[in-house]
C-alpha cells in the first residue's frame, strides 16, 4: 500500500506538529506514509472565492503529485472533500479519477481503510468534539442532526475508545464554526460570532480539550479561544491519538 | 390567448431538461388507530371526544359548549339555518359549527372536510368554535392513504388539523388566530 501524506498549506506553515502527529500515528498503525515535497494546496481557497478557473493549474499539480499513490491522506477533511467533489472540473482522465477516489481524510482512512475503530491508550480529559461540516456532511464521517438524533461518527468512536476520556455533550452537536475559508475574512463579523457561539457551547458544557479532524476549523476556533483567553486547549485529533498510542 | 402565455410555454419547452421519470409513491404503512389520532390532535391543540353513538351528539355538545347560542349544523337543527346564500353578517355571529368530517389522518390529526359538508364555504373558519363528527373507522394512517381515498376535491375542500393558530409573535403559540378558536373531533 503506497500512501502519500498531503499536508495542506496552512498546516505545513502554521501547524507542523499536526503533520508530524499524522505521520507518526500512521506509522504506529503500520502505514509508512511518504510526503511528496512538491505538493502545495488543493486549490479550495480560490475555488470557494469564485476563482475556480485560476485553481485549475493547482488541481493539475495536485493530481500530478499524487497520481502514483494508492491513497492520499490528509489531516483535513475539507481539502479532501474539495478534491473528491470539485476536481470534476478537470478532464476526467484515469489519473484524475484515481486521485479523487484515493484522497482520504486521516480519520476516514483509519476507520474505513485500516478498519480501526478503537485505540489503546488513555486520555483522561473532558474532550469536546468539533465536527467539521465538510467531513461530516460532505464525506459522511459522522451522523447529521438533520437526519437523526443519534450522535455517532468515526472520530467519536475512536475518541470514546480511549480510557478516561469524557466527551462533551454539546447543545448543538454539529453547528458550523463559521470558518468557511475566505468567508472568515469576507464575512468577518458573522464568522467571528459563529466561532464565539461554538466555543461558548464548549465552555458551557465543560470542554477542556477541543478537538476535531479538520485543522482549518480548529485554527479559527483556537484564534477565538486565545483572543478571549479561555481555559480550553485546542488540539487536532491526530495529536491526541498519536500522543496516547504507544 | 395572450402573448405572454405563448412566450412562457415556449421558454419552458425550450429550457426544460430531458424528461425524467415520475416516481410511483408507495402508500407506506403506519399507525391508523384512533388513539394515535387523538394524541396527535391533542398535541396540536385539538381535542377528541368519544360519542357513544350519533344519538348522543346533541347532549354531548350541550355539555361541551354550554355557552354556544348560535349554532349551525347539517346533523341536527341548529339555532341558525345556514346555506350557501347565508349573508356574511349572519355567518359572523355563529358560535359553534358542527360538521361531518369524512376522513381522519392519524399521523397529523387532520380531518377531510368537503364542501358538501360545510353548509357554507366560510362556515368552518368563521365560526368561533368547530366540532367535526367522524366515524372512527374512517381514520387512516397517513396523508397518502387519505388522498388515495378521496373521491376528488370537489369545488372546495380542506384538511383541518386543530384550531386556528399562529406563532407570528416571537414564536409564541397562540390558539385562535382568524379561524375557529377551538376544534373538537367527536369520534363515534
Amino acid at each position, binding site marked *: 500500500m*503506497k500512501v502519500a501524506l498531503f*499536508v495542506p498549506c*496552512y498546516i*505545513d506553515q502554521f501547524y*507542523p506538529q499536526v503533520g*508530524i502527529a499524522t505521520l507518526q500515528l500512521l506509522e504506529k498503525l503500520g502505514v509508512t506514509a511518504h510526503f*511528496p515535497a*512538491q505538493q*502545495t494546496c488543493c486549490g479550495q*481557497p480560490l475555488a470557494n472565492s*469564485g*476563482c*475556480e478557473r485560476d485553481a485549475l493549474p493547482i488541481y493539475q499539480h495536485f493530481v500530478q503529485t499524487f497520481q502514483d499513490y494508492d491513497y492520499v491522506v490528509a489531516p483535513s477533511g475539507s481539502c479532501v472533500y474539495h478534491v473528491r467533489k470539485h476536481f470534476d472540473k478537470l478532464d476526467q482522465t484515469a489519473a484524475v479519477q484515481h486521485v479523487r477516489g484515493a484522497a482520504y481524510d486521516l480519520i476516514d482512512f483509519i476507520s474505513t481503510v485500516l478498519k480501526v475503530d478503537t485505540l489503546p491508550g488513555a486520555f483522561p480529559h473532558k474532550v469536546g468534539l468539533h465536527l467539521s*461540516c465538510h467531513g461530516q*456532511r*460532505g464525506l459522511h464521517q459522522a451522523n447529521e*442532526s*438533520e437526519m437523526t438524533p443519534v450522535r455517532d461518527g468515526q472520530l467519536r468512536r475512536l475518541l470514546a475508545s480511549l480510557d478516561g476520556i469524557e466527551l462533551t455533550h454539546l447543545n448543538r452537536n454539529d453547528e*458550523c464554526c463559521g470558518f*468557511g475559508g475566505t468567508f472568515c475574512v469576507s*464575512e*468577518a*463579523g*458573522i464568522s*467571528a*460570532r459563529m466561532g464565539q*457561539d461554538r466555543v461558548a457551547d464548549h465552555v458551557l458544557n465543560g470542554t477542556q480539550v477541543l478537538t476535531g479532524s479538520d485543522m482549518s476549523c480548529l485554527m479559527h476556533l*483556537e*484564534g477565538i479561544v486565545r*483572543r478571549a483567553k479561555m481555559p480550553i486547549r485546542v488540539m487536532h485529533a491526530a495529536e491526541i491519538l498519536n500522543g496516547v498510542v504507544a | *390567448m395572450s402573448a*405572454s402565455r405563448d412566450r412562457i*410555454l415556449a*421558454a419552458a419547452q425550450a*429550457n426544460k431538461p430531458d424528461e*425524467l*421519470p415520475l416516481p410511483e*409513491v408507495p402508500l407506506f404503512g403506519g399507525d391508523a388507530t384512533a388513539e394515535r389520532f387523538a394524541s*396527535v390532535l391533542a*398535541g396540536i391543540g385539538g381535542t377528541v371526544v368519544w360519542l357513544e353513538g350519533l344519538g348522543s351528539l346533541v347532549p354531548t355538545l350541550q355539555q361541551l359548549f354550554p355557552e354556544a347560542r348560535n349554532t349551525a349544523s347539517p346533523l341536527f337543527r341548529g339555532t341558525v339555518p345556514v346555506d350557501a346564500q347565508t349573508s356574511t353578517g349572519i*355567518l359572523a355571529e355563529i358560535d359553534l359549527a358542527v360538521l361531518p368530517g369524512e376522513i381522519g389522518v392519524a399521523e*397529523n*390529526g387532520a380531518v377531510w372536510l368537503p364542501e358538501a359538508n360545510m353548509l357554507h*364555504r*366560510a362556515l368552518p*373558519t368563521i365560526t368561533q368554535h368547530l366540532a367535526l363528527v367522524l366515524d372512527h373507522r374512517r381514520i387512516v394512517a397517513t396523508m397518502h392513504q387519505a388522498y388515495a381515498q378521496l373521491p*376528488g376535491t*370537489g*369545488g*372546495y375542500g380542506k384538511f*383541518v388539523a*386543530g384550531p*386556528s*393558530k399562529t406563532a*407570528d*409573535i416571537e414564536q409564541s403559540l397562540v390558539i*385562535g*388566530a*382568524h*379561524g375557529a378558536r377551538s376544534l373538537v373531533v367527536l369520534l363515534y
Partner: protein
Amino acid sequence: MNHAIRADKFLLDADRTTWHDETLWFVREKRDKAVYGVPEFQELRELASQIKNHTLSRLDLYLQEFEAAAQANGVHVHWAADAAEHNAIILDIIRQQGATRVVKSKSMLTEECHLNPYLIQHGIEVVDTDLGERIIQFRDEAPSHIVLPAIHLKKEDVGDTFHTHLGTTKGESDPQRLTEAARQHLRAKFLAGQVAISGVNFAIAETGGVVVCTNEGNADLGVNLAQVHIAAMGIEKIIPRLTDLGVFTRLLARSATGQPVTTYTSHFTKPAPGKEMHIVIVDNGRTQQLGRPDFRASLKCIRCGACMNTCPVYRRSGGHSYDFTVPGPIGAILSPNIDMKKHASLPFASTLCGSCTDVCPVKIDIHTQLYKWRQVLGEANEIPASKKWGMKFMGRVLASTRVYGLGGQFARRALRLLPHGLTHATSFNAWAVARELPAPPKQSFREWYAKQPQPAPQPQPKLPA
C-alpha cells in the same frame, strides 16, 4: 452595500442577535423532532425531489394540462411574463369588479412583484391578513423570513406597533392579547373584503385546483367571504397528481415549523356558485432559471423556510441582510438569477456548511449551487477586484512548489518578527478583529520532514519537465 455590511449592522446588537439565533434554532429543533418521528422521511424527500424534477422536465405540458383543467372548472386563467404584467392583471380584475377593498393572504410571489405598493398607488386598500405580514405592513417593512415574516421583531416591538395602529394599551406585549387585537381588527377587514388574493402552495395539473396551506385560516376566511378570489402562482408550483400531495403535505409543515401538517390544507378547485376565481400564472425569471442546468433545481423549492432556520449565517444576520424577497440560502441562489450585480454578495454569505441542503425537503443542492454561483460571479467579474487579483496571484504561487515554499517561509518569519499590533491591526486584517493569528512555528512541516531519515523508496511522481 453588501451582505457583510448589512450583517455587521445586525450584529451590533449582540443580545438581539443571540435572541434571533436561538428563536430560529428552536424552530430548527422542532423540525428535527418532527422529522425523526417519520421513519420514511428521507424516502419522502427523495420522492418529492423526483416528482419536482419530473414536473420541471415536462413543465410546459403540465402548465397546459393545468390550464385546461382549471378552465373546465370555471376558473379564469391569466399568464404574466413578469412582475409588471402580474400587477396589471390583478389591478384589472379588481377594477372590473369596481372593488376597492382587498384582503390578501401570504404570497411571496406578490412580495416579489411588489404588488401592494402598486395597488395602493392605484387607490386600492390592500390588507395583509397573515398576522406576521400585517405587523410588518403596519411598520412598512419587508418580511424577514418567508414563513415567519416578522421573526426579526420582539413582542415589545409588536406591542408598540399595535399601540400605534390598533390602539392597544401602551406597553401591552402579551402575544395572546396582541393576537386577539389583530383578530378583531382583521375580522372587520375580512367581512368587508370584496376581492381576496392568495398565494398558491401547490397547483395540481390533474385537477386544475390550487392548494393553499395556512395555520391561521386567513386564506379560507378571506377567499370564502369575498366575491372574487385571485390566486397568484409561479410556474414552478405545479405538481402532476392529486396523490402527490401525500408526499408534499407530509414534508412541508414538518420542515417549516415542526408541525405534523398545517392547520388548514385548503383545496380551491372551482369558484362558489355566483362567484369568480382567477389564477395568475407568473414567470418573472423562472423560465430563465429553468434554462440554467446548474441552478434549475432551485425551482423545486416549496418555500418551507427550513434552510433559513438552519442557516448559521441567516440566524445571525437576519432576513433583511439579504435585501431580497426570499432571504437565506435559497434566496442566495434565486436572487442572482434576477439581478446578478445587485445580489452578487449573497452566494458568498455562506460557509458552505451544507446544512441547508440536508434539511431541504425537496433535496435542492443549495450549498453546491452557492458554490457554482460564486464561479459564475467570478467569471462575470462580479467579485471584488482585490479578491479576484489576489486569487489569480495565489493560483500562480500554489501551482509552483518553489514559489509556494518561499512565500510560506516569508509569511511565518514576518508573523514572528513583526509586532502583534501590526500583524493584528484590524484595519487591514479582518481575521484579527476577533481572533488571534496562529502562533508561527520555527519551522514548517516540510522543513522538519526534510531532516528526517527517509522511509523506504516511494514512487517517483511524474512531473512535467
